[in-house]
């Protein structure tokens, strides 16, 4: 009964309005000076293919990139903030994503979402906003990501000093 109801709601929504996709939003905002959009490929980790075993390599390959979009609220763009916030909320609360976790406390709210199956998601999204600061949208994009290997992968990355490589590379980008 509940599933039927959700289905009806989804159909009703998709039937009468087409929400902008998260990808369209990223593309649209990459030209807007109020936004900071960064695309971080996993190659930034500086991992040589030869140092990983097959399991680690397969896990790493299932993750492709991290896309970050930031809106920093200033006196000059304060008016734009509620509009943008509304659009992003509509996108993340839309049918494309399933919520994993939600934290909301007074001025702050944070949300972790997933696209695809729990076993093999294609995208994991974090959306955080603070009334006085702005918001941040981070997308971890992959292809059937091996989330259960996250612990194995994290150990391998630590062993190879991947975090240091990434910090250095991001530092150069900015």
């Amino acid at each position: 009964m509940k599933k039927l109801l959700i289905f009806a709601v989804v159909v009703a929504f998709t039937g009468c309005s087409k929400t902008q996709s998260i990808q369209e939003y990223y593309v649209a905002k990459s030209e807007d000076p109020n936004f900071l959009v960064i695309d971080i490929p996993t190659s930034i980790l500086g991992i040589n293919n030869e140092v990983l075993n097959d399991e680690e390599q397969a896990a790493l390959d299932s993750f492709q990139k991290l896309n970050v979009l930031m809106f920093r609220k200033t006196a000059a763009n304060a008016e734009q903030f509620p509009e943008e916030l509304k659009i992003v909320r509509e996108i993340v609360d839309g049918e494309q994503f399933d919520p994993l976790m939600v934290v909301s406390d007074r001025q702050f709210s944070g949300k972790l979402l997933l696209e695809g199956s729990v076993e093999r998601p294609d995208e994991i999204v974090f959306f955080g906003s603070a009334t006085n600061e702005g918001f941040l949208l981070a997308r971890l994009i992959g292809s059937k990501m091996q989330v259960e290997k996250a612990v194995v992968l994290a150990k391998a990355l630590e062993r190879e000093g991947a975090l240091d490589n990434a910090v250095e590379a991001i530092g150069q980008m900015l």
Partner: protein
Amino acid sequence: MVALITASFSWGQDVFEKYEYDDSVSYFSISPKMFQMLAKLSIETNDPEADKFIKLVEEIESFKVITTESKDVAQEIQTWVDKHIKTQNLDELMRVRDKGAHVNFYVKSTKNDDRVKKLLMFVTDINEGQIDLGDRKPETVLLYLSGDIDLTQISKLVNEMNLPGSQQLGKLNKK
């Protein structure tokens, strides 16, 4: 005013999601998918207490907490709880008064006395003078759990959150 709010409050709507972006509300939820994912990560520890806790977490399907400092929102939560108990046929597990606060526990029972499918913990009339919550003055706390829940273990989780009523729930262990 209250009648108007109550009337406009559509039947069956989830009170948690309704207020998720409201500044007068604090909200925390973990969805069934998150619990499925956590179970996949198969975290291992060498601590038997921590293992028990992980086992408990794996039995939970959905976890939600909402607290508010607004009297109007507190009233709506009360209305939702009253309706939900009726429509879902929840049983009152117990009713306690702890440090001036009223704590009601409702459950969806199973044939096993120690296991429930749903647990609803509703705290009202929180007396700030007797419970130190920093600069927060919550009117109401509502905690909602579903899954295959072991009541004898759940009090530990409630205890972790330092909410009133957890000690009473803990006493269930000793019956």
